[in-house]
């Protein structure tokens, strides 16, 4: 099977969907001509392949980019727009939160908005807090948006293709560090249903629910735990909205223990939602209090040792698991 980074997998999904559906177009800052030339990046080569009519470099105008998607989607086009870095979501947020998410409801179900907003996220490249700030919990809090945050290149491909075909607004968040981590990706048509979590490792002793880049951290922790005879089950949510509560609950009912792991800051983070679902639905199955492993409540710092301190690591996951064993 082909080995691709997540950026290449996203690129392949975009190419395939654009090839088979003339209503699909992409727009954003540098999606055509970029300041970064690398075949590992999501929109590399698309301008050459599809031309400037369908690969639209925009001014630095996030509200206009997101509004472009809303208006074009209302007309039945299938825009895939890029917000260069997750923190810039704030500049596009009115269009996404007040319009993309709500206009169908306000129309009484008459209109639909088949658009995808891709956002590049994650800490780890030393740019600091205005380029690294994972805001998936903000987006997940807004009814009317679907929220996808893949952890593997194959999932990114399958989910992005589904997102483009979905009749609803989808926010698709890519951790940039994963662009450079190759993994197997099926060639050609490959779809993954939105809203289905995936058990990336089976285990009987503790459930670790996670998503995006933290999957790698969870798997690393699981290997360390396995050496000590503890079998962790790793649930990769892949989609935050709609949330696959069934998979979470059945895993927790099996293991009786839960750790939720994400890179975003702690207070109001999506781990709280996962925890609440488990407390409401599976409290009696818990053998111990649950634990959250998250970024601390600070902006992402720039200096390498500070940034490393910010990002949750496998040792924190191992120690959280040991606390509740």
């Amino acid at each position: 099977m082909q080995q691709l980074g997540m950026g290449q997998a996203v690129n392949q999904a975009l190419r395939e969907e654009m090839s088979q559906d003339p209503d699909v177009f992409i727009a954003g800052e540098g999606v055509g001509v970029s300041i970064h030339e690398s075949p590992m990046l999501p929109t590399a080569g698309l301008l050459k392949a599809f031309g400037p009519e369908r690969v639209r470099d925009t001014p630095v105008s996030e509200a206009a980019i997101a509004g472009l998607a809303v208006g074009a989607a209302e007309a039945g086009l299938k825009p895939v727009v890029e917000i260069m870095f997750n923190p810039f979501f704030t500049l596009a947020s009115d269009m996404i939160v007040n319009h993309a998410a709500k206009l169908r409801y306000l129309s009484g179900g008459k209109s639909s908005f088949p658009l995808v907003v891709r956002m590049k996220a994650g800490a780890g490249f030393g740019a600091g807090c205005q380029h690294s700030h994972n805001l998936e919990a903000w987006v997940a809090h807004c009814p009317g948006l679907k929220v996808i945050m893949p952890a593997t290149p194959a999932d990114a491909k399958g989910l992005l293709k589904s997102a483009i075909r979905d009749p609803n607004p989808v926010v698709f968040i890519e951790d940039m560090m994963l662009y450079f981590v190759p993994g197997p990706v099926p060639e050609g048509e490959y779809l993954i249903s939105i809203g289905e979590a995936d058990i990336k490792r089976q285990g009987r002793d503790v459930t670790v629910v996670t998503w995006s880049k933290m999957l790698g951290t969870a798997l690393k922790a699981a290997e360390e735990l396995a050496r000590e005879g503890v079998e962790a089950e790793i649930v990769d949510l892949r989609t935050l909205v709609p949330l696959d509560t069934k998979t979470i609950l059945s895993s927790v009912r099996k293991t009786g223990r839960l750790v939720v792991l994400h890179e975003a800051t702690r207070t109001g983070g999506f781990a709280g939602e996962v925890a609440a679902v488990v407390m409401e639905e599976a409290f009696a199955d818990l053998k111990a209090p649950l634990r959250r492993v998250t970024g601390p409540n600070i902006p992402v710092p720039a200096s390498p040792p500070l940034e490393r301190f910010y990002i949750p690591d496998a040792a924190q996951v191992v120690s959280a698991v040991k606390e509740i064993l």
Partner: protein
Amino acid sequence: MEIPKAKKMEMLRSLLLSRRFEETLTELCKIEGKIPGMMILCTGQEAIGAGVCAALQPEDVIITNHRSHSHLLAKGADPKSLMAEIYGKRTGCNKGKSGTLHLAVPEINAPCTTTVVGGGPPIAAGRAFAQQYRGEKSVTVCFIGDGAANEGAFHEALNLASVWHLPVIFVCENNLYAGAQRYEEHTRVEHIADRAAGYAVPGVVVDGNDALAVYASAVDARSRAAAGKGPTLIEYKTYRWRGHGESDLQLYQPREEIAAWQATCPIPKLRGDMLAQGLISADELAAMEREVQAVVKAAVRFAEESPYPEPHEALEDVFA
């Protein structure tokens, strides 16, 4: 510009219908428990909706704002379904989800009424992009107020529309007030249309209480947009007769100022012109007035007799 008689008749009826519709709403708002939520009216500004929409084709799109009633009626929305929506009834155009502030009527190509000031322009640019992308000859009109011209999204959209030559017309109804702020308190340029120059877009200033002048300017802007020459920003000078909403006591609007602008009401202006030119007789005018009264009365009856949605219907229509 020679304006056909049929267009003038269309505009006159549109003015009368919108005025009757909103005067009825003003009265209904005084009845406790009748109309839920805020009520925001465009009374006195109807020539803009009437004139602009008369210049449009059915396939043209409008994106409007909280002061939308005349735009939607002029574009051809069914008064019954608008009134029922304003009442919060299930038979409303949005099944009670939007109320008076967000009336969405996609079947007449009026898919978005946004109450976020400045929310319309980026969406209008996107809608116009779709028209351009598909090679359609239709255009999109975005109605905003003077307050919206101070929102960043307005400037981003104007710039994008200019750079991409999008077939969009930005219509700014300068009614002299944004909330409780008079124009001079929130904007230093003499005309909002002056800002168009900053984006290499034509900026036009027109009397917004003169339906025929509104129509002529909109026809020009539409031709330009449909020919691929890009956007136009038209500023219509008008006045907000009512407060921001019906609960606004208008203590900051001088009585003399209101009276002076009411003397420039768009209805007698067009009506007088048409009577003087023999385009309509007194009898035909009376018949037209009776007809729009009957339409509004029927809309109120329809809304009154319609059921409210069941509470659980609130859960529907979030996702497609």
